[in-house]
């Protein structure tokens, strides 16, 4: 139920609760990015090959070692998909939060510039978001390339 509420719909409530300072934005961003990661992690763990789990158990791997050597790496491709989704949501949420309820920040800068018809400042703000978003995605892609280097689909820089 909770995850079916679009987190941006909570903005009025969040402003009432936390005011318009940093806490409100952090809360919204956290809320927006937790579900894609949670859902994909859950899906990833559910889909770890049961044959590998059986093999590992019969070779005496259990407890934390089983999680660390089998479950986590097996779920990692899904977790990373979740992370990339979450990064997208993160920027989106931040832009909306900064635009609607803020006293500073890039979004506030853009809205302020709109008031004074400063198109160049608005464009700079948009570009800034684009660059930050690209950087975050590159970082996530880098993590994928390193952590999933065993995966045939991620070898030789053929990342998705």
């Amino acid at each position, binding site marked *: 139920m909770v995850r079916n509420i679009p987190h941006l719909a909570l903005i009025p409530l969040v402003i009432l609760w936390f005011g318009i300072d940093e806490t409100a934005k952090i809360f919204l961003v956290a809320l927006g990015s937790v579900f894609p990661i949670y859902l994909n992690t859950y899906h990833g763990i559910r889909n770890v090959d049961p*044959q*590998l789990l*059986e*093999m*590992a158990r*019969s*070779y*005496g*791997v259990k407890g934390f070692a089983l999680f660390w*050597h*089998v479950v986590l*790496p*097996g779920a*990692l491709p899904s977790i990373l998909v979740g992370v990339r989704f979450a990064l997208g949501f993160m920027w989106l949420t931040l832009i909306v939060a900064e635009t609607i309820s803020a006293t500073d920040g890039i979004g506030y800068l853009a809205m302020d510039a709109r008031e004074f018809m400063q198109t160049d400042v608005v464009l700079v703000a948009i570009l800034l978001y684009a660059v930050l978003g690209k950087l975050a995605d590159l970082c996530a892609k880098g993590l994928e390339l390193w952590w*999933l*280097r*065993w*995966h*045939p689909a991620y070898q030789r820089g053929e990342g998705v």
Partner: protein
Amino acid sequence: MTEQSTSWGVGIRARNLQRHFGDLTVLKGLDLDIRAGESLVIIGRSGCGKSTLLRLLAGLDQPDGGQLEFTGETSGTSDHSVRMMYQEPRLLPWKTVIENVEIGKVESARAKFALHEVELDSKSQEWPASLSGGQKQRVALARALAHRPELLLLDEPLGALDALTRSTMHRLIETLWQEHGFTLVMVTHDVSEAVMLADRVIVLDDGAIGLDVNIRLPRPRVATDPAFVGYEARLLEYLTGVPAEAPDETVSKHKRATLLPESGYLAISN
């Protein structure tokens, strides 16, 4: 029949072993003795319970009735080292070949040696995804060997391999079995593979032992040896249910008694 002087393997004694899945009874009171160090091959039609039996031996599954115990000399601990090789290699794709062999707290020196035994030293730093099917199964074999098993269970591990690779694997498994002296229990569909590797072949039929044959052939065995072909024919005859008798039964039975296992008579008459 075992050719090693000191047997490292463990024996098995099963009495009245039963396993049901819902209404389906897969094992109906199976009695089986396996000698320490023996090489036993279990064959049978699909669904005859051979994989179920192997999983019981591996401790991956519990019997619904009867007793199953390990016998013979142990390596000092009460905890028998039983390792299984599956139809699929089941390598962890995110670990290199050597890391896969080291799974389950194996010293790296021992893992290296096991990899050397299956002649894959050069691949130790590769990802499993880059290996061929036969190489993957060799890594799986090394992984089992690194644990110094007293009992090695093979569940049709060569089913997916081509004939040439399979024949190489037969030699490799035979050699390692002779060197290590573990007890070998293998499940297969392939009658020729059974005769190639087994001291003793049992045919499971409807949840019980239908046929129990000692294969008295010197190793290494040659598939074209008439005696080899004779054993194959006898097992195939049992499995397919096609009687190999000629119309004149007394004569044919007489022939069979005298000619088996030295000749391929039954194979010809089939």
